[in-house]
Structure formats: C-alpha cells, structure tokens
C-alpha cells in the first residue's frame, strides 16, 4: 500500500493481476463485518455483494479490462437512498423503509462497478457528533472501543479504519464527515456545496448537506471525489460548470502556496491538538508554503448561525415523516391526526425531536425575524468575509476538532457540549467551500488527531493537492483492524 498510498489502486492491482478474486475479497470483508465488533453496519448486503463480485470475476477471467472502482468494496451512510435496500437514517422512523430509487452518488459508484457491502450505522437523521443517537445503538471507535467514533458518519469512519470497507460515502452538514474522520484517524473530504449531487440523500439541512468520501488516504479521496463529483440535472443546487478534477494535480509542487491560520481556532483548544497542528504548519513551511496568521472575529457567530438555520431547515425537511406513505406507523390510532402524532412521537428519537422543536420555534412568525432572517444575513456576511480572506490565502489551515475522541455519554446532560464538537467545521458548510480532515498525529491516549484544510469553493484540486503533499511527508494512518490491514 505504501507504494500506491491508495487502497483502491492496491485492490485494483490485486484484482487485475488475479492475486485475489473479487468474490474472495468481498468474502473477507463480509466475514469481518459479521464479527460486528464496532456496530458499524445497520444492513449488510451480502447476496448482492457476492453476486456483483462474481460478475467482476467473470469479466476479469474473460480478459476484459475493469474500471478503477470496479470490484472495490464500499459502504454507504444510511441516509443515501439505495433502490431495493432499506435505508433507515439510523431511525426507528425508517427502520423498514426501502427506497424505490437510487441516490445519484450511489448510482454513479454502482455504474463504476463499486460493490456495496452494506449501509452504515449513523446518528439518527445525521443529528449528532458521537453516533449515540442511532436507533440501532452506538458505534465504537476501532482505535479504542470505549470511545465514540464521532458523528454523524460514525459507522462509515469505523468501517474504513476498522477494515470493514475500502472506503465509505458519508454526508457532512456541519462536520459529520470530518469530525468522525478525525476521531478515527482517516481522511474525510467534504466537497463544495454543489459538487456532489444531493439527489436521493435524505436531507437534514438542505443548504448545508454535502456527501463525500471517507478514505484511508488522500489519493483514495481524490479517486472517489473525481468519480462522484458530477453535474446532476435532478439537483438544482448542483454545479453545472466543468469540475476541477483533483487526481492529476495531487503531486504538484506547492512551494509558494499561501496558507492562512485563523487565530480564533488556535486559542482555547486542547493543547495536544494545538502542538500537533503547529507541527503540521512546520511541515508546510518545509514544503515552501508561506504561512500567515489572520483574525476573523465574526467566526464566533458561526455556531449560532449553524444551529438556527440547520434546525429550521431540518424541522421542515422532517415534516414528511407522518406514517402515511412509508415509515413507522403505530399499531393503534384513532384518526389521521392521531396517526401522525403517534408516528412522530414514537418514530423519532430525542435529539431529532429537539431539533424539530427548535426549528419550528425559530421559523414561527413571531421569531423568524429575530432568528432565521438574522442568521441568514450573518451567513451571507461570513461568506463575503471569507471571500476576502481567500484573496490573501490559497488554503486555510485549522484543527478539525476541539478534542480527540471522547467516551460515551460525554454530553449526557448538556446537548450544547455535543454541539460544540462542530465548532471548527461548521464554517465550511455555511460558506459552501470544500474542506478536508487528514490525520496528523496522536495524543497521549494514542487517539488520532486531525488537521483541517479549507479551499475556495469548487477548488477541490488545490485542497487535495495541499493535503496530499502533507500526507506524503507525514503519513500517520494506522489500519487498526479488519481486511484493509492485509495490504
């Protein structure tokens, strides 16, 4: 793997040279998944996976060429609609919901021959930062099973570092890809809003949500990103311009690149994380980057903006779950209204209810000017402020999380404590820019630390180039368990 620094390339090579058959490969993953050490999967698609693998083997043995992603085992967050395969959103509400169509990003991967191992566990409707709100139980961090994997894409992150999938697709609304990537010591890429189609991804907050890859390496992230970043006419927010593809520019020289460090995120953080980030800065200096600190006091509003707008949009998005057409429906009810009330009362968990209540309150006519409109204005302001920052810098560098992976029940009595896990990540969603978390070291408990990079909107090429150059200097991904270890 070191020679490739990509598990996708490595598996591709093994399959092409017939060192392993695709069926054998998939079986290994399935065997590991069945041990269920981390509770990373909600649904395992064993039969479909083995059938698809047999087709890949047939193709290889008949001498046909296979695509780069063909035969590569992938897992999907359970908000991504998969035709004929249940898609639960980690909720009792959708425990038995089977979509009748595919999300565009899965359709693309499927057309590229990727093999679906199953649907990952996650926080309920992607609401959470610890994967504890799932109706299907918490996910454990493969580094230390007494710690959470982060959230909401906890199952996906655990699958990748725990060797239960070569890569995974998750979603990121306020940090839901990058924070678990950081807690699990892997790469998490949140593309620009509009880069990857949202069609078929069951939304939390429509103006923030974006799907992206969780991978072991930057090169893997680049391969997957280049595949799934496509204009989709079914998604009006999809970018219709030509994409800046990333793979060919990964190894470009970055000397002279201007990297800005926001002072606001270097104070008050965990000191081990700060010293790790300072090492990253040194590495970049050695690579010839120009480093400078800057201050943007307005980022202190980022959390408030996020929780106001996200709750507002989520409360509306989740209105459709009424027990009438699909999803959870109680056995007994008196009339239509009672059916709707009971379906929602019994189908949703506490965190989901909390955000629906908050969002409904925020949008109600007496408060919408004080909360929703104000937050919208601040979001626009922040977008403009960052636009000027990006005139001075090519990349912004900051920690991914204020802490490393914490234990279960960390924020049992204080939801705000959990919300603060997003403090370094939400800004990228608010201003719709691409962001990546890459592993950069370990704390004293030997838990991974992540560094985060931002780039201007639709400049995933610059972002992954910078990330790849760092990774080449300090590759600190450990494969702690499972099949990925074999390479």
């Amino acid at each position, binding site marked *: 793997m070191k020679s490739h620094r990509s598990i996708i390339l490595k598996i591709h090579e093994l399959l092409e040279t017939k060192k392993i058959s695709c069926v054998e490969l998939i079986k290994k993953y399935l065997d590991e998944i069945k041990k269920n050490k981390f509770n990373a999967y909600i649904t395992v698609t064993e039969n479909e996976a083995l059938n698809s693998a047999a087709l890949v083997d047939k193709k290889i043995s008949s001498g046909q060429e296979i695509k780069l992603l063909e035969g590569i085992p992938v897992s999907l967050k359970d908000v991504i609609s998969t035709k004929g395969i249940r898609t639960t959103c980690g909720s009792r509400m959708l425990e038995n*919901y089977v979509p009748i169509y595919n999300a565009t990003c899965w359709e693309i991967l499927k057309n590229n021959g990727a093999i679906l191992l199953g649907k990952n566990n996650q926080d309920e409707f992607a609401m959470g930062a610890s994967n504890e709100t799932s109706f299907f139980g918490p996910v454990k961090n493969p580094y230390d099973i007494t710690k959470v994997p982060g959230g909401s894409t906890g199952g996906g992150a655990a699958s990748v570092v725990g060797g239960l999938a070569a890569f995974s697709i998750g979603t990121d609304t306020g940090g839901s890809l990058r924070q678990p990537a950081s807690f699990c010591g892997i790469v998490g890429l949140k593309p620009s809003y509009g880069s990857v189609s*949202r069609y078929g991804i*069951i939304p939390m907050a*429509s103006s923030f949500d974006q799907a992206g890859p969780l991978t072991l390496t930057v090169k893997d992230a680049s391969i997957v990103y280049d595949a799934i970043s496509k204009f989709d006419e079914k998604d*009006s*927010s999809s970018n219709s311009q030509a994409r800046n593809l990333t793979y060919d520019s990964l190894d470009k020289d970055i000397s002279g690149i201007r990297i800005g460090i926001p002072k606001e995120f270097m104070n008050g953080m965990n000191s081990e994380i700060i010293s790790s980030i300072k090492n990253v800065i040194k590495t970049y200096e050695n690579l010839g980057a120009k480093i400078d600190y800057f201050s943007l006091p307005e980022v202190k509003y980022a959390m408030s903006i996020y929780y106001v707008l996200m709750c507002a949009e989520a409360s509306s998005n989740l*209105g*459709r779950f009424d027990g009438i057409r699909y999803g959870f429906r109680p056995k007994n009810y008196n009339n239509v209204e009672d059916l709707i009330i009971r379906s929602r009362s019994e189908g949703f968990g506490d965190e989901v209810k909390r955000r629906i209540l908050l969002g409904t309150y925020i949008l109600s*006519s007496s408060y919408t000017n004080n909360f929703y409109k104000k937050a919208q204005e601040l979001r626009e302001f922040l977008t403009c402020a960052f636009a000027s920052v990006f005139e001075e810098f090519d990349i912004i560098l900051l920690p991914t999380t204020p802490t490393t992976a914490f234990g279960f029940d960390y924020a049992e009595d204080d939801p705000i404590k959990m919300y603060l896990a997003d403090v370094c990540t939400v800004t990228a969603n608010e201003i719709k820019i691409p962001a990546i978390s890459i592993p950069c070291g370990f704390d004293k408990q030997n838990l991974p630390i992540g560094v985060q990079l931002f780039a201007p909107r639709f400049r995933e090429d610059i972002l992954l180039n910078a990330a790849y150059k760092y990774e080449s200097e300090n590759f600190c991904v450990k494969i702690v368990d499972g099949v990925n270890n074999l390479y």
Partner: protein
Amino acid sequence: MNYELICGLETHIELATDTKIFCSCRPKFGAEPNTTCCPVCVGMPGTLPVLNEKVIKYAIMMGLAFGCEINLNSIMERKNYVYPDLPKAYQISQNSAPICIGGEVVLPNNRKIRIHHIHIEEDAGKIINKNGSIFVDYNRGGTPLIEIVSEPDIRSPEEAKEYIEKLQQTAKYLKISDGRMQEGSLRCDVNVSVRKIGDENFGTRVEIKNMNSITFIVNAIDYEFKRQVEILAEGKKIAQETRRYEEKLNQTQGMREKENVTNYRYFAEPDIRKVNLNKEFVEGIQRELPELPDLRIKRYKTLGISSKSAELIARYVRISDFLDETLKKCKNPNIAANFIIGTIFSHLNTEADKEEFKIPLNSNEFCYLIDLISKNEIDQNNAKQILIKSLEKKGSLKQLCDEFTKIKIDFDISSICEEAMSLNKQAILDYKNGTEKAFQAILGTVMKLTHGKANAEEAKKIVQEKIKNDKIFI
C-alpha cells in the same frame, strides 16, 4: 342602515404545462389514483424539486396580460403545514417575493379590480373518503398553479362573476390553462366583509374556501353578505373565520377558527435557486403575447360585426380563433359571424361544447360556403341546411356545397315551377282569392321536386311572375 359588500378573491388557476412543476410527470384529469406521480411529486425522502421553466413563463404571461410588474428576482418558498394530501408537509409556493406584483382586471362596466400579486405554487393531492376509510390520491400533487390575489375591490356578486370570467377567458387566450372549473382547473377562495356605506375601515373578513363554480361563488357571496349584515344589524360582531359553502343548503358554514396570523413558517426553499430573470426574457414574452379578448372584440366591431356577436364569439377562444382563420380568406365577416352564432352555436349545446369547439369542418370549407352565399349561388336558408348536415357529420361541407350547386345547374327552375303549378291548381285559385298560405303549397312542391335544392327566393319570384302573367291556369 345601508351596507356595502367588500370582496377580494384568491383565484387558483391550474397551468396546462406538459409536465408538473417540479418533475416530469404528465398530469391527466381522471387518471387512476396514484398513477401520474413519481418519487419527486409524492415527496419520497431525498428527492429534489427542479422548477419547470414553462411555469415561470406562463405566470409572466398572465401578469403581463393584466399589466403587472414582473419581479426579476423572485424566490420560491416553503409554506409548512401538515395535511395528508401534502406529502412533503410543505407546499412550495411564493410569499415574500412573488413573480408578478400589482396590475388590474378591467370589468365590462369599466370598474378596475386591482391585483395584489400573482404567485406560483404546486397543487396538493386529494383526500378521498370511501367506505369509512380515508384514501389519498397524489395524482394532482405537483400540478403547477398560479394564484391571483386581488385587492378587496369587488363590490357585488356580479362583479365577482365578471372578474373570474375575465381571468378564465384571459388564461384561455394565453393558452396557459384550460380553465375548466368543473374539473377544478380554476378554484377560488373568497374573502367577504361588509361595512356601512361611507365607512373608511373594512369590517372583519370571512374566508370561504375552495369554490369551483361561478354560480356557487355568486350564491355564497350573496348569502354571506346577508348573513353578515344581519349579525351587524343585531349589534353583534363578525367572527374572523374560514367558512365552507354548502351547495345543497345554499349557505356558508363555519369550518375552523382562524388565528389572526397564520403560522405557515415560510422560508426560502433551499432546494431551488432564486428565479433570476433578465429584462430581455420578459420582453420576449411580451412580444409573443397573443391578442387578448378586449382587443379582439374591438377589431371585430371595426369589421362590421355587431358588438353583441363580437362579444359572444370572443368569449370562446377556439371559436374566435376559427373566425379569425376564416377571415384570412373570406371577405364577408358579417355573414361568417352570423353563421357561427346562428348555426354553429346552436349545434354546440353546452358551454363545454363551445369551449372544446370540436366540429367536423375547417375554416377553408367554412369560407367556401360563405363565398357561395356572397356570390348568390346558395341562399342563406340552403346554406344553413348544408352547414347543419355537415356539422352532423353527414358529409364534408365542401362536398355538400358542390353537390348542391351541381344539382341546381342540372335542373331548369322555370319548368320545375310550371310543373309545380300544374300540380297545385286549387292552391293557385285559393291564392288568387286571397289565401296567402296557399302559395306555400306551390313552393313546397318546387322544393320536393328539386330535393330541396331550389333557391326558395328565386322560385317564389318565378311563380309569382307566372301567376301574374299567364292566364292558362285559370
């Protein structure tokens, strides 16, 4: 005490686009339940709306027809409420920045009803109560609508009727809607209040929801006006509420108490980009706008068509289009108009028939007939019979005309008249003795002998001449 009616209408018009507002389903009235819908219009989790450009165009056409200002930066918004026929639990609509603002509808009495705004939105599905169970049919869900919101300028039930007819007629001329009220393509929410004549302030407003018949709207306004006046006369207060019109009882009945501010939790739809238009786009639509009914009536009048006929014809866009097609080739507008109203109208029995205007002849054939009349080759009476035959699908109009003129050439009308006179000697005597009626018997025989092809006027003249000049019959 004298009270006056204050009425404003919210009129929903279904747009006749090929596909729905946010997906590619094709709506079809009367289709089997839940067969013209897809994951998008039933709001399956994860689906996204894509705004149909035609809907924007049609809304702008309606706006331009009534002199509205077109908003170049309108936005779609979510109107959140819970109801089983609304599968997303929000209706995508417009609130703070609708597509058309202002404008006015001019009634036949020249009174102007101001338009507050016109906005775009999606229709909901339908609840069906059957055998004690509740079913939902989502076929109608996602059908594009425009809602035309008037100012409270309407002062009588008749004005309400004229206002709605004007909207309906205009929508049909623009070909943006079929405007069939009985199929729900045009529905109204009616706001009614009353005030003492001379008062500046409006009274408390009552809303009557979801009406789809002009007759019922007129009756409901009438009833509601009297009800409110009665309450006020007793010194009581009107409750602000939503009422339903009960057709069988011809009354309105309270539905549910309405809060002072309805809480729909509107916010900008994050799944649809802002509707940013440029002036050129709007100007292009303006240029392509068809001639509207008022102008058409004016033009007909200058052609010498009576104003009553002009209005009657212009009421039905397809009939009016047919006349215009005919007039491209035909030099006799008056005869054409009279035949349309006299013969074609009576063939099309119902309003719906007139709307549909399905007749088995085209404007070329019709023009051919009118020309024959102008050239005196067919008299009006025979022309009418031929036209009726053709409308009853007993042959093509052109063929029937040709047959008629051919037979006419084949016989000598003079000798036919003589033959008829010799067969009616008694009648001639009676006629000469002053029994006018007896003359009809002779003409009847002429018609019989010519299978109705003789020109009655011509025959009459010939017979009269012969009776006067020739004594042989005495």
